[in-house]
């Protein structure tokens, strides 16, 4: 069943005619799109520096730095930074990832200069004041303590350690208490000095501002930034699948519910079968009330409040997993149900109706995902990160509709071997049931 494109709807989909893309001489790529319905502006972006740069001993360093950038600059101390931002209802924040460090900022249009100035200052001239850094360290450590008590977060961590053993994806970007304790002020300064720079940085600006004006504002703050030390992105080693199915269970005292993850590594975003895998995942564990998995685990069996699957293809082979939160006595039942669904998914073609439903879903939800400035900024960053082309969202219906049932089964079988899945559970000590 094909989709008729509603011309009105698709007139508002970003494309080459309304996205301004400029590469500054120092390598920064600026993407801008106007939305004059909005009196505010969203500024989002990333730099090619992340947890991959961390040593095992100081795991969490890149993430630590991303949070430390806002703690003081050569021109403003912590309170001044936030006083300037919060006084005008603006926001700015950084967050560390595996491959990149991202940022998001937002302000009213008239306050964009302030926001841009702060973005440039925090990136280029952070001072990492000791008192602030120690305060931040205590906050990060408390965050890690809370993580150690969070069954979903610990199941995710256990899963990554299991599936990606020996691969950088096995490591937590936030680090661990002992690695956060090991990081010195000097580490922060050195890491920033060597790794933060303009090459590979991408900034998207969306809102009530002329795109050229947005480019000029960024250029005036960041075009003279250079860092001769900036290293190339580290390459990823090959990922090796598990030789057989393995289950790891982590006990956390005093909890009522267990969280479980089942899966393996999936495709990279650039893999030719990514779209087929993504549509397939939608059928497996997302569409409607969380796809086939939600249907059997929640709707038919009443065994969980949430049960779904997720495919996180990025610059590398991100995880392809099913998750559920269940009563500890039902762990095995739910694992069996999900395993059955995965088996069916890799051995039987999805139905024509399932495929056309998911294709319609993918195409139909595009306008909704692009209604806000933040949605458009995020979508433009995806274009750049994965080199999809400025016309990608306009070609998107065609790309989605080109996927066949056979493509989905081939993609599923390519990644999901039901005999070699990793299972990670975090929950209270096991009660037999």
């Amino acid at each position, binding site marked *: 069943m094909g989709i008729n494109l509603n011309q009105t709807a698709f007139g508002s989909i970003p494309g080459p005619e309304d996205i301004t893309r400029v590469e500054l001489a120092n390598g920064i790529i600026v993407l801008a799109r106007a939305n004059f319905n909005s009196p505010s502006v969203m500024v989002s972006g990333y730099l090619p520096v992340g947890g991959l740069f961390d040593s095992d001993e100081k795991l969490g360093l890149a993430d630590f730095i991303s949070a430390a950038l806002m703690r003081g600059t050569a021109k403003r101390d912590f309170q001044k930074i936030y006083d300037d931002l919060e006084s005008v*209802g603006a926001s700015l924040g950084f967050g560390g990832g595996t491959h990149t460090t991202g940022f998001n900022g937002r302000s009213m249009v008239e306050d964009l200069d302030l926001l841009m100035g702060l973005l440039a200052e925090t990136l280029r001239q952070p001072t990492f004041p000791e008192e602030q850094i120690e305060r931040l360290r205590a906050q990060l450590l408390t965050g890690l303590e809370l993580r150690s008590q969070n069954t979903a977060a610990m199941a995710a961590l256990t899963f990554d350690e299991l599936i990606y053993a020996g691969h950088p994806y096995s490591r937590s970007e936030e680090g661990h208490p002992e690695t956060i304790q090991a990081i010195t002020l000097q580490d922060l300064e050195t890491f920033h000095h060597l790794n933060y720079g303009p090459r590979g940085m991408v900034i998207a600006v969306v809102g009530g501002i002329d795109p050229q004006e947005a480019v000029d504002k960024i250029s005036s703050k960041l075009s003279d930034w250079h860092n001769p030390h900036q290293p190339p992105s580290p390459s990823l080693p090959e990922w090796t699948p598990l030789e057989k199915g393995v289950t790891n269970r982590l006990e956390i005292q005093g909890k009522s519910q267990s969280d479980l993850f089942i899966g393996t590594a999936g495709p990279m975003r650039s893999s030719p079968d990514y779209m087929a895998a993504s549509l397939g995942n939608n059928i497996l564990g997302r569409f409607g009330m969380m796809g086939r998995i939600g249907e059997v685990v929640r709707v038919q069996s009443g065994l969980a409040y949430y049960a779904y699957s997720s495919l996180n293809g990025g610059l590398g082979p991100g995880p392809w997993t099913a998750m559920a939160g269940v009563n500890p006595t039902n762990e095995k039942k739910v694992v069996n149900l999900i395993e059955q669904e995965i088996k069916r998914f890799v051995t039987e073609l999805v139905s024509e109706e399932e495929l056309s439903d998911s294709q319609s879903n993918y195409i139909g939800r595009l306008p909704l995902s692009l209604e806000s400035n933040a949605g458009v900024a995020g979508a433009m960053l995806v274009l750049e990160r994965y080199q999809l082309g400025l016309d990608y969202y306009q070609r998107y219906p065609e790309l989605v509709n080109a996927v066949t049932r056979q493509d989905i089964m081939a993609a599923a079988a390519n990644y999901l071997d039901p005999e070699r899945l990793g299972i990670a559970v975090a929950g209270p000590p096991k009660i037999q049931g």
Partner: protein
Amino acid sequence: MDSKVVNLKLSNGLLVLLKEIHTAPLVSQWLWYRVGSRDEEPGITGASHWVEHMLFKGTEEFPGGVLDKAIARYGGFWNAMTYIDWTTYLETLPADKIDLALRFEADRMGNSTFDKDEVDSERTVIISERQGNENNPLFLLDEKMQAAAFQVHPYTHEVIGDMADLESMSREDLYTHYRAYYLPNNAVLAIAGDFETDKMLARIRELFDDIPAGDVPPRKARPEPKQTEERRLTVSGPGETTFLKASYHAPEGTDPDFFALTVLDSLLAGPSSLNMFGGGISNKTSRLYRALVERELTVSVSAGLQATIDPYLYNITMTVHPETSPEDVITALDKEIKRLFDTVAGADELARAVKQARALFAYGSESISNQAFWLGFAEMFGNYEWFQSYLDKLAEVSPQDVQRVAQKYLTPQNRVLGIYLPDNNN
């Protein structure tokens, strides 16, 4: 917020609010019912939330699974929320597909089947939802504090309900609750987005006019007597982190003091907004952040004031720094509150709070779903004019007003202090 809002009542009492917004080819519909956990007696606590779950199980015309697939096929989303005062159902869809949601909401206002097997299967889903909540220390603390703060008023129990009731409630209990409250004269239909008002209204009349009005049970919540002395409680549980929470009895949404308390909250703990979608901003220059986080007594602080039908709570939640004690935090908190009692805040601080609220409105306006949310929300405890005058009312608050409401509400005898103490049993 400039375009006109059409506001009218159908003959059966259904209140309709419509707002055309033509910035994106989307429409968002919210159907609100005046029923929430406050309308539940012991024995059926959690019924409103469970009814909300059952309304996703379908009707004869739209059997379970049909609708969620149809909405997903069109690229829309739908959801529902149950609160202490209200229950709401929302659908956001491409503009040319909204008719499906209108038809469905008209149908499930009275025709949800509440199949017995599905009630049983949903029982375990909701118990699982509650167990997921119980994994969170702050839920454990909240539940005890709400019970301590309300000893007479039905705000005493959590929306999800007590485990004993979740285990024992019957299909009949739920169905009776549903039929009692799901009536056009107990509902508000709010729609915002890319439509023509005349056509939309005609369609609403076709679908909803014939649904008969009924006798809605009176909302006879017993008023909570004034608290006369501080209540303190401790909850212990797993983990290594201590939490402290202060809950002050606060005025209802329509009380004139509500706006002054909203401004006070901005000064004390950071900007608050009425956004359901669209995010917020940080609170690092708020008085409590400076007094608690910057002095390493806590690692975080946040606060919230809810607009409710009856007086509810102003909650301040703090994560205690590992090197300090809850008692030290209470001392510092009280010192900041005393400062509000003793010294009038600067006009610049108030102006800043209003600017922040305006910016947050601008961010929230980008989402059609959020605009539609705003339309109906204020009707649940007041009316739409409350929302329309919100920013003006904030701007009218004077420094003396802030001082006065601080003295009136933020006293020790008006609060419950709760501490979550980790038992370090790992």
